[in-house]
């Protein structure tokens, strides 16, 4: 078996890049050569950007030692229990595009699964639970520094939520470490805890905001910094839905009621015209396997997140189990609506799973480089958890 040593670094790398991320993290501890190959910024696990992980953070309101965090890797098809020193709370933790954010009292971000935290200069209006987008501006000479857009959210006056305040949109300039004020979300959208009633998607230079129940949609042009008119995006029969930015298409995912019953459908949305075309329906038995009760309104506890080629659907009220399924959009065709989908159940969470009062869920790409090189330097104050 020692002949493997005779493989060149090139060939070793060829084998290694076929492995899923958790295997690679373990493999980096084999020897110094492997650590340097795997943690190099030019090394990447193939297709990792199209197969984002699914994260579930469970919160206990009174006893924080009962908090737990889990991460699902779709390539190895395994759940991982994350270390309990990840500190978070429902009010100030948000996630977007590979990062975790704390938005109040200060604004800080860290790549998912890395312990490296960067803090920016404060927002003009620090807020809880906003919608967040991450993008890389073409004007930015240093392409590695992300820009952020923060929309909505709430401010607290004492212990009460300030509902009158329509908070300005703020956009982060990484070169100047400063925030620019932009026009706020159109008033058709209610103020309040944004992520429970709104879903957002960043697609082709626009930040879309979509009302999960209201079906209102508006998009913010990141260049011109203007909001589009508010429209309604609701295919017939839809009771609630989520807007998701996938690799090459904007997708609407939600529950659709018809004579035949309820189903969970996916529509491709044309970002210019907001026209929709249905391209997938979750198999009925898979949908019903996410519930244990037969109540009429059981579908209301479904949540949906997605990125790249994957869309995750799960039941956020099914305590201790949180059953989920994932849809992989396999082919992309030039025809409108094209694309084949493969649906499958996500395996059970590893026990024990505590009882939670709230669950934060999100979908995110995972950067091997950020995890292994958590000691990288960046502008702004830095800290390790």
């Amino acid at each position, binding site marked *: *078996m*020692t*002949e*493997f*040593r*005779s*493989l060149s670094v090139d*060939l070793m790398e*060829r*084998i*290694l890049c*076929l*492995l*899923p*991320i*958790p*295997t690679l*993290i*373990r*493999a*980096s*501890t*084999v*020897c*110094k*050569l*492997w*650590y340097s190959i795997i943690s190099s910024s030019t090394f990447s696990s193939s297709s990792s950007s199209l197969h984002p992980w699914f994260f579930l953070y469970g919160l206990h309101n009174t006893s924080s030692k009962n908090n737990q965090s889990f*991460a699902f890797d779709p390539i*190895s098809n*395994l759940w*991982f*229990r*994350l*270390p309990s020193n990840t500190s978070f709370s429902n009010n100030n933790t948000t996630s977007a595009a590979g990062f975790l954010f704390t938005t109040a009292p200060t604004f800080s971000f860290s790549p998912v699964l890395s*312990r490296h935290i960067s803090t920016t200069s404060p927002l003009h209006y620090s807020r809880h639970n906003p919608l967040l987008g991450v993008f890389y501006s073409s004007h930015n000479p240093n392409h590695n520094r992300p820009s952020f857009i923060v929309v909505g959210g709430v401010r607290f006056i004492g212990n009460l939520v300030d509902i009158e305040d329509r908070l300005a949109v703020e956009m982060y300039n990484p070169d100047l470490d400063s925030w620019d004020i932009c026009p706020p979300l159109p008033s058709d959208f209610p103020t309040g805890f944004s992520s429970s009633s709104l879903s957002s998607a960043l697609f082709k230079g626009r930040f879309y905001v979509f009302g999960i129940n209201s079906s209102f949609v508006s998009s913010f042009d990141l260049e011109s910094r203007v909001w589009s008119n508010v429209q309604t995006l609701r295919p017939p029969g839809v009771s609630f839905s989520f807007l998701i930015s996938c690799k090459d298409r904007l997708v609407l995912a939600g529950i659709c009621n018809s004579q035949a019953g309820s189903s969970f459908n996916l529509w491709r949305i044309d970002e210019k015209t907001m026209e929709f075309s249905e391209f997938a329906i979750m198999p009925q038995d898979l949908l019903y396997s996410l519930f244990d009760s037969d109540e009429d309104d059981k579908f209301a506890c479904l949540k949906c997140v997605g990125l790249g080629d994957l869309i995750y659907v799960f039941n956020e009220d099914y305590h201790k189990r949180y059953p989920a399924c994932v849809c992989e959009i396999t082919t992309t065709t030039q025809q409108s609506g094209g694309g084949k989908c493969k649906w499958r159940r996500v395996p059970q969470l*590893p026990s024990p799973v505590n009882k939670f009062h709230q669950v934060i869920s999100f979908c995110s790409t995972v950067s091997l480089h950020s*995890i292994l090189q958590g000691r990288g330097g960046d502008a702004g104050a830095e800290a390790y958890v």
Partner: protein
Amino acid sequence: MKFCTVKQYFDDENNNNVTNGIATTVIPLPNKHLKIKANNKEMEQYEQELLRNVMPQELTKLILAANYLNFKEALDFFCRTVANAIQNKSVDYVRKFFGLESDFEPGEEEKLCKEFAWSFEGVDED
């Protein structure tokens, strides 16, 4: 093209890179590939059959042969086989498989394992 290197191999008499045994395994692959290129499932079955008779140690030779012959599909396939063989295995198993030894400073390896302890869950028993 796939066949240039093969021709070169036959022309070059003093070739140490590809032994005869390996040649008989790798060389027929291009033909078979072209024949059943359309049908992926058949190719998979053929590949599984091929590997049933090959020991893991032989895989290095196959990889080196496919690399030398510039035969991308075979190279990808052999590399994928090795990747599958080590995917869920322990770090010690992987070290033995590749004939590698840990060259970390004392304590350095423990620090890494501790930091990434979460990724060590679900590993197969040796």
